[in-house]
């Protein structure tokens, strides 16, 4: 059977879900960030699958933008993690509740 765009959408949906689960379940914030990267990759797979189906490069251009944003996000996020770790000696997200009421 031929591989249609549906397959790719399903794949990216599954990947997305795994990422979401990682974001919501894990307490190690680094792993949460990695799950976010997974989610972004799911998005990219979708974009490229559609650009493949529509036979134009726009989806890939957007994928490039997504990658750029992911890079920025990783840099700033990890910077924040380091700064936080320096103060509280932990990367557990459950202990990041300085502002809870």
């Amino acid at each position: 059977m031929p591989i249609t765009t549906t397959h790719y959408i399903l794949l990216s949906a599954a990947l997305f879900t795994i990422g979401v689960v990682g974001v919501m379940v894990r307490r190690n914030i680094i792993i949460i960030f990695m799950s976010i990267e997974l989610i972004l990759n799911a998005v990219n797979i979708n974009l490229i699958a559609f650009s493949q189906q529509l036979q134009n490069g726009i989806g890939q251009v957007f994928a490039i933008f997504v990658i750029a944003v992911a890079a920025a996000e990783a840099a700033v996020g990890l910077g924040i993690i380091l700064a936080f770790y320096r103060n509280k000696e932990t990367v557990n997200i459950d202990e990041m509740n300085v502002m809870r009421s």
Partner: protein
Amino acid sequence: MAQAIAFYFIAACILGFAVLVVSTKDTVHSVLFLVLDFLFVAALYVLLGAEFLAAIQILVYAGGIVVLYLFVVMLVNLKRPPEAHSDPHRRTMLGFLLAGAVLVEVGAIAIYGFSQPAMVPVPGAAMPVTGNTAQIGWLLYTSYLIPFEIASMLLLVAMIGAIVLAKREL
């Protein structure tokens, strides 16, 4: 046929490694699984005929971002296990449920909702091998020039921000 085999193999690897990423206890190992995952995603891009994106994927993700993660993991050498303390108000099961529901719904849409219009089969590897790099470059520098510039500005800002955050004393 060969394409189907390749797709299923790659997809299986992607999902499996993704699961490993979110489930492993040792942070370093999960970073490694993340790298493998990205490599296979790149392979998927090649299958989709987007070899430029594949190269970018490896270069930026595997070569750049994940190295950053690895550094952070090494710098944050944890004396006590990172997930020791757990807040009583967590709703873990609810998270699983919601995620599963979303997956089911999206799957439903993808299969039933999406395939009403006659689907053209994606000619994966049958894509002309004469590269879409030029096409992407053209799009980037003509129609998407301003977003491109904004993205570069965003990267600059992010770089400065990361330096400011991570540097102990400025």
